[in-house]
């Protein structure tokens, strides 16, 4: 059970202006800007939930994760995770969480991955029996049995990420924080990572909090979404709710002969090539079948498809809506 109440965090950042003249001036006087990384962030996540935490760069995702994992101390607000305040009771707290930073490695670069695992086992004081059990499960599920004998520096990004995830789960944490776990991975690795995350959430009831820019991650994994922008939680809901909200607009892809000159109210031309058009229909004004009938009255349709908004598009429209 994770509960955040009115968390605020500000950073003081030195302002640096471009140019030679400014560089000289900054020697003597430096201006600071206050950045409100988080303003009044509150939410609750229940045990066993899987939550996608999204927002543009610099919105405050990492700061929230860092506060929840005990790295940062917020300026004000409360955060109770499994009955503890992370930054006050750091050591007891982190024993129960696992963290994967997608852009950083926790493996020792020059030694076989297995050696890193051994060290992590001792850091977390995992007993031999459960370590063995855990390791064999993780190596099997993540398919890393072969590669843990190799030094981390020789692994591909995808192989390394699978090892990183295993390393974060060796101590069987109740909560797993994943900070961009699929960044830079190829399609095969992405799918492997996703299905693994789904598995541990379903089987082990591990609570998963996932930040990502990849909407396919969200579509594949999470039901609930938290959207953060400029340090505020803007939206807390489910993916299907969002879809419903955005299902007003459908896109018609039409291949045709002849020409389409007139559009009804509620239709909007997104793309027009010779013999191919994409038309967005606002279903509040006009039904899809009416729109199709309208088009077929003007031109000979040879192919037609109807699509709703993709998650990617939904997020873009959300960002627009909230002006972030």
């Amino acid at each position, binding site marked *: 059970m994770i509960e955040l109440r009115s968390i605020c965090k500000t*950073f003081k950042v030195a302002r640096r202006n471009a140019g030679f003249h400014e560089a000289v001036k900054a020697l003597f006087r430096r201006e600071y800007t206050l950045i409100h990384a988080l303003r009044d962030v509150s939410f609750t996540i229940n045990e066993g939930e899987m939550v996608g935490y999204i927002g543009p760069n610099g919105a405050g995702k*990492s700061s929230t994760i*860092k506060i929840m*994992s*005990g*790295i*940062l*101390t917020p300026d004000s607000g409360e955060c109770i995770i499994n009955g503890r305040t992370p930054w006050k009771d*750091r*050591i*007891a707290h*982190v*024993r129960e*969480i696992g*963290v994967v*930073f997608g*852009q*950083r490695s*926790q493996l*020792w*670069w*020059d*030694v076989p991955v297995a*050696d*890193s695992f*051994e*060290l992590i086992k*001792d*850091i*977390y*004081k995992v007993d031999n029996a459960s370590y063995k059990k855990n390791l064999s499960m993780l190596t099997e599920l993540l398919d890393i049995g072969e590669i843990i004998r190799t*030094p981390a520096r020789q692994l591909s990004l995808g192989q390394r990420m699978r090892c990183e995830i295993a390393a974060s789960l060796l101590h069987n944490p109740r909560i797993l924080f994943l*900070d*961009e776990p699929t960044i830079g991975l190829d399609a095969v690795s992405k799918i492997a990572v996703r299905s693994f995350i789904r598995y541990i959430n379903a089987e082990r009831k591990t609570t998963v909090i996932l930040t990502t820019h990849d909407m396919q991650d969200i579509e594949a994994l999470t039901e609930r979404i938290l959207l953060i922008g400029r340090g505020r939680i803007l939206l807390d809901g489910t993916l299907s709710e969002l879809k419903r909200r955005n299902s007003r607009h459908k896109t018609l892809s039409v291949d045709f002969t002849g020409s389409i000159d007139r559009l009804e109210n509620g239709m909007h031309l997104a793309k027009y090539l010779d013999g191919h058009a994409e038309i967005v229909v606002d279903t509040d004004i006009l039904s899809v079948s009416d729109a199709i009938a309208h088009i077929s009255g003007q031109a000979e349709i040879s192919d037609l498809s109807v699509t709703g908004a993709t998650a990617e598009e939904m997020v873009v429209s959300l960002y627009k809506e909230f002006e972030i």
Partner: protein
Amino acid sequence: MKLYLKYASIILKSQMQYKTSFFMSVIGQFLVSFTVYLGLYFMFHRFHSVSGFTYSEVLLCFSAVLFSYSLAECFVRGFDVFSLIISNGEFDRIMVRPRNEIFQVLASRIEFSRLGRFLQAMAMFAYAIPVSGVVWTYDKILTLTFMLAGGFFVFSGLFILYAAICFFTLEGLEFMNIFTDGAREFGKYPFSIYGESVLKFLTYVIPMALFQYYPFLYLTGKSSRTLYMFLPLAGMLFLIPCLIFWRIGVRHYKSTGS
């Protein structure tokens, strides 16, 4: 302790992946401090003594400082390169692990190649101990041991202080080099030769004279105050404010990046 050894073995394994580079560094470290020794040798070649201290006495002082410094540098290295540990995100990782942060910083960096300096300190000891004219009774041996331990503690404290400053500035402050590198360089001579005010500063502010100058006077028989023998132990207390400052720094930590 068992965990520390495990860290040590992984670090040793990593460093042994680049054997040539490792041994070159050991030799290099040795050479760097050897040239410093040569400089000192040339000075005594010309002047024979300085402010009443002979060559072999100064050598004894030099080796004691170098000994404790190189040990501190080898094992407390993590704090010396702490700005790097902050900037590459390693400290975030440290914070999400259920162990004391100081322990983890200590254990995650052990610079075995610094033993090059240590080697030289040993060689100088081997030369200076018999010829320095000190009669090695038990109390003198104890004094020297105190000096080495005191030096190790004070240097470690300085490294930790240096690291704690990084929490606020995010980069190392070059000024602290005066107390670490500078103490090593200028500490090869008994601190009294720099004059009264420097000695006072190094007694009451940064207590380096407590493990160097005063017990050294007792060691070489220039003073018979037994109090001087125990001053290095008082110097060790310096570690306490450094650790307190570190705690404040951790609170202030503002993680970089993404």
